[in-house]
Every structure is written in C-alpha cells, then in structure tokens.
C-alpha cells in the first residue's frame, strides 16, 4: 500500500464523519477539524526518517485497516469495570467503552458547585463557551500527525472544567475500556481538563483492554492549569498486548501552578506516549514521572518535552524502565529553556533495568538552553539486576525468581512511591505485581 493509500482510510472516515457532526450543534468546531484533517493529509504518518520517530516504526499501524469503534458492552458489568483499574479508589468514575461515554457504567461523587464533569461529545454541543478557548489550542495538530488525526476525528472523551477557587478533594477517574472484538477498530478519544485559578484536582486516566484483540487507541489529553492551581495527574496504560496505543498529554501551565504527572505504561504491542508541558508563567513547578514495564515483543516509546518559557520555573523528571525478553523501549526527554526563562531549575533522570540480554533501550536526554542563568542536569543509566543483591536475597532462602521480582519491584517503587494518594499507589502496586508474576511458574507473593 502506498503512502497516500495509508492515509486514505482516515480521509474517507472523515468525509463520512463530517456529515454526522454538522447536524448536532458541533459545527463551531468543524473548521478546526477540517484544518486538522488537511494537515494530516499533508503530514502523513511519520517514518523512522523523522528524528522524533527514529526508533519507533508505526508501519504496523499504517498497514492495518481499522474501522471506527462502536459502543459495545460485550457483557461488561459494573463489577468488571471496578476490577479493570483502581476499584478501591473513592472517586467520581467516568467510564468510556471503546471511546464512547457510558452513562450506565459511570458514577459520580458529590462535587463542589459549578464543577463540570462529563462527556466531551455532549459538551461539544452544550458548552461551547467553556471549551472554545481551550480545545485544540495546546496540542499542536500543525506539527503532529496523530494529534491532527485525533483533532479531526475525535468523537468523545471527557470534559472536566473546574472553575476558579475550587478544591476537588476526591480524584476524578477517566476509565477507557476497550471491548474490541475480532475486527480491528480505532478510537480517537479526546480529553480536555481545565483547572481554574487557585483550584486543585487529581485526575486519573486509565486505558484498559479487556481481552486480547487488535485495536488502535489514538488519544489526546489537554490539561490547562490556571494561576496558582495544583494538579496531580496519573495515567495508566494497560491495553491488550496486541493493541496499538498512541497518546499525547499536553500540559499548559500558568503562573505559580504545580503539575505532577505520573505515567505508567505496561500494556500494548506498540506504544508511544508523548508528554509535553509548557511552563508559561513565572514560578511554575512541573514534575513528570514515568514507569514503563514491558516484555515479549512489546515496544514502548516515551517522549517528553518540557518548555521553560518564563523565569523561576522548576521541573523534575524521573522515568524508569524495566524491559524483559525481546522487548524494546525508547526514552527521549527534551528540556528547552527559552531566553526569558532565567533561574530555571531543571533535572531529568532516566534509569533502565534490562532483565534480558535481548531487551533494548534507546535513551536520549536533550537539553536546549537559551538562557544564561539556569541550573539544568540530566542523566541516564542502563543496568541489570545486581548479582550481589540477588545473591544476598537468595542466600536467605528466596527463589531466584522471587528475589528478582522483589528487586524489580523495588526499582519500580521509586517512581510509584511519589504518587500522593495511597489508594492509587496501592492500586498500581497490585497491577505491577500481577505484571511481574503473570508469566512466572511460581505463584508465591511476598507481601
């Protein structure tokens, strides 16, 4: 199939889709969709000749003809939803099935007045005044083909709007479940999270595949932080082991705001996570932590970019990877300090643990500094489990597998441990534990 052929499926998806949306009060957004699709038609899918895609080939995605998803419960129950992720977490839970908001599976806790929480598809028709200033204003469809595709074809997702001066105590969980059947399907979910001045919120995004089918998730989330606001954001990617997952998290921060992001990636066959943060105000604090844990033939690519635009910003980044069997990974972390961003303090660390001789990681930290009074450091490590530590544990009676599992958990714990809400931490620890032990013969646990 030629390069244009690969694009054509999506272009004809758009042509069909455009007819639907002109009827439902979303026409105000049609202009941006049209710009985005024509930009996608120009850009096409990235190839490995593209610097930002050097180690990740999306050829497997472009070769498959994915049909748009439908809302199919396929026997999904509230109980199954709870088991999918963070079932113990006291939170408002917005559930999406194959990218569509599910009113029957979602549940809400009491929220402070004027906080809006719900389906993006509905909000596109009803909340134009709240969304208009933000939607597609941050994640660039001009530069990124997958973002362009998502912007043109987005159907649903979550819209969270927290007005000025509101503290939302309990987390908001956006749970995206895939029940995809035998036919390969694609969903372009889109989330917009706007947090006002002096407000505070915790957002959890989970992507979970039920079953082992082939599907493609192409998701974009924009998070907008008002002045002096505080947002903790946790992202869990646990798609089917045959799924493709391409995600962009675009964060825009105003003066004195604090963003803490934690991205945990364990599922998927081919995964690309882009996290971009623009620190567009004085005294902004940004933390991006990540953990990727892959095995088999999985490939995971984490690209982060932090733009320090204004002075006195602080950014901290810790990404850790655990790669087993023939899996491969990429970490590409770019920190750009613009000319005006004096007194920037940026620190970036990437640590990798290779559990197999056949596993591979490409790590590339990048610093671009245009200001002259800054403090920036970065570092990468790639290592194996230390034989000395392994021997010490074994000499006390622990199996090689158990000992190795413990040391791997400990390695992962450094990032997970930084998540503030305990129920999220324990939820993630449980997920990681099953991930570590899934393919092992020994069922012993050590907790």
């Amino acid at each position, binding site marked *: 199939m030629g390069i244009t052929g690969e694009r054509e499926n999506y272009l004809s998806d758009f042509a069909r889709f455009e007819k639907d949306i002109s009827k439902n009060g979303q026409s105000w957004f049609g202009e941006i969709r049209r710009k985005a699709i024509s930009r996608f038609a120009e850009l096409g899918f990235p190839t490995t000749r593209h610097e930002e895609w050097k180690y990740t080939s999306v050829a497997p995605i472009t070769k498959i003809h994915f049909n748009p998803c439908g809302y199919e419960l396929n026997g999904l129950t509230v109980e199954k939803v709870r088991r999918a992720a963070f079932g113990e977490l006291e939170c408002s839970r917005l559930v999406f099935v194959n990218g569509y908001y599910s009113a029957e599976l979602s549940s809400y806790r009491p929220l402070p007045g004027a906080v809006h929480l719900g389906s993006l598809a509905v909000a596109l028709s009803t909340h134009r005044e709240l969304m208009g200033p933000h939607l597609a204003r941050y994640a660039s469809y001009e530069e990124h083909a997958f973002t362009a595709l998502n912007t043109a074809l987005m159907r649903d997702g979550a819209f969270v709007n927290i007005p000025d001066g509101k503290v939302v105590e309990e987390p908001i969980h956006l749970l995206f479940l895939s029940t995809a059947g035998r036919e390969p399907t694609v969903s372009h979910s889109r989330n917009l999270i706007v947090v006002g001045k002096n407000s505070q919120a915790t957002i959890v995004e989970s992507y979970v595949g039920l079953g082992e089918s082939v599907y493609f998730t192409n998701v974009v989330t924009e998070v907008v932080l008002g002045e002096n606001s505080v947002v903790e954001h946790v992202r869990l990617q646990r798609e089917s082991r045959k799924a493709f997952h391409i995600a962009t998290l675009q964060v825009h921060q105003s003066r004195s705001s604090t963003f803490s992001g934690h991205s945990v990636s364990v599922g998927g066959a081919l995964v690309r996570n882009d996290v971009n943060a623009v620190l567009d105000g004085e005294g902004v604090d940004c933390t991006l932590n990540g953990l990727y844990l892959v095995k088999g033939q999985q490939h995971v690519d984490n690209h982060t970019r932090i733009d320090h635009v204004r002075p006195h910003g602080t950014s901290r980044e810790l990404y850790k990877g655990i790669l087993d069997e023939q899996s491969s990974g990429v970490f590409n972390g770019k920190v750009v300090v613009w000319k005006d961003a004096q007194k920037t303090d940026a620190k970036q660390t990437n640590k990798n643990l290779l559990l197999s001789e056949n596993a591979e990681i490409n790590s590339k930290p990048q610093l671009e500094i245009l200001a002259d009074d800054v403090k920036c450091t970065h570092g990468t490590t790639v290592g194996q489990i230390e*034989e*000395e*530590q392994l*021997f*010490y*544990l*074994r*000499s*006390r*009676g*622990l*199996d*090689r597998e*158990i*000992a190795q599992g*413990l*040391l791997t958990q*400990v*390695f992962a*714990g*450094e990032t997970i*441990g930084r998540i503030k809400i305990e129920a999220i931490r324990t939820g993630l620890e449980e997920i990681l534990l099953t991930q570590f032990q899934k393919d092992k013969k020994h069922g*012993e646990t*050590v*907790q």
Partner: protein
Amino acid sequence: MLEIRNLHASVGGKEILRGIDLKVNAGEVHAIMGPNGSGKSTLALVLAGRETYMVTAGEVIYEGKNLLKMAPEDRAREGIFMAFQYPVEIPGLNSMTFLKAALNSIRKHRGLEELDAMDFLDLAREKMKLVDMGEDLMKRPVNEGFSGGEKKRNEILQMAVLEPKLAILDETDSGLDIDALKVVANGVNALRSEDRGMILVTHYQRLLNYIVPDYVHVLFNGAIVKSGGKELALELEAKGYAWIEEEVREACRVDLQEGGHAA
C-alpha cells in the same frame, strides 16, 4: 554435619583455595583464622553458594548431601546461613518484608506453617532485643544507610530469626567497636546449641574472647596449615601470623630436602 574434603576453588582463573579439609559436627564452634588473602572469605562464600567462585576439585558433604550441587536458596532452606562480611544494601526493599519472606520460604520448606504479619512481628521483636536493635531500623530498607555496626547486628538478627543448623560468620567482628562486638557475641552465644554448628571466620583473636571456640584452624595460602584448641588463637595473637608463615616455609624446605635425599 559438614565435611569438606580437598576443596579447591578459584576466581577469574586464580586459585584461592588449595585443598581444604574440615569437619564440623553439630554443637561445635570452629574458628578459622588467617592473614589477609589466605582464602577465609572465599571459603565462606563457596559454602554459601556464591557463583563467582569456581570449585575446581574436592567435595562438600552437608548432612549427607552434595552441597556444591545446591542453589544458594536451597542451601539456606536446608539450614545454612552465612553472615556477610559486607552486608548488601538494597535501597527500597523494606527490611521486615524481606525477612518475613525469607523466613516463610524456609518454614515452607521445613513443612511449617507460614507466619502471618502479626506473628512475624512478635518473633522479630523478640529477636531484636537479642541484638539490641531498635524497631525503627527494621522499618528502613535493607541495610540502607546502616552504620557498619548496624549492618553486622542485622546479620545476627537475620540469623536469630532464620535459626540455621549451620551458621557461617564471615568476619562479623571486623570494624566493630567493643560495645558492638559484645552485642554481636552475645547474639551468637545465645544461638549456640547442641544441634547447631558454627564456623567463625575471623582475622582477629579479639572475637574469641567473647565467643569461645571448640577448635581453631589457621588458614594460609588456601589451605589449613594448623589446627588446635582455643589456646592456638592466643598463640596467634601473641606471635602474629608471621610465625605460621615461617613454620610453613620451614616445613616446605624440609619436604624439599627430604625429597632431595630420596633421589
């Protein structure tokens, strides 16, 4: 309990142990002394199953089984415990979690019921008193940020909790001040029993003022060159290792001369 016969071991192609013979019965405490580089720690690590050492000849029979064929974890489950000369730090791994997992894997192997968190805590608290260790230390990751003395006490605590049949202490006394040494020695003495064998590997006689051994062996250049009772340790302390070295050289010369005459 343990019988070592003509044990040879090397690391990186260099022979360190050159024919060790040693027999340890239940209830006995053996001290192995020797100068730096004589092979003391190598012997301890070979018995514990460290894979960096290659056994090139000889055998080790432990309770009728071929010890050298067993994985380190199997040795531990069968009752062998080595207190490390340099205990390993494991940042992030909680000490209690680790010790409970270790104990339960050994208990399981022995056909005993695994201890739950509460029962384990009671046991650990009781043993902590034995080595004068505060509970706060056990809430920290394994050996991380522990002082030298705390690490050694932690080794003895592990030994007390795991209750081995054969304990091997690799220079547990090195680098300890006298108070810490007494604590460690008290811990070891409390564990002395009729059915437990002990091997104390040490550089200094000082430890043997507090733990009185049944036998003392001198290791030199990878072989045991002299064995005796506890008096031998005192003699070594008074005269130093040079005396042994001299005796060994003398013996070699005599051998050579005798050989010469025979030819």
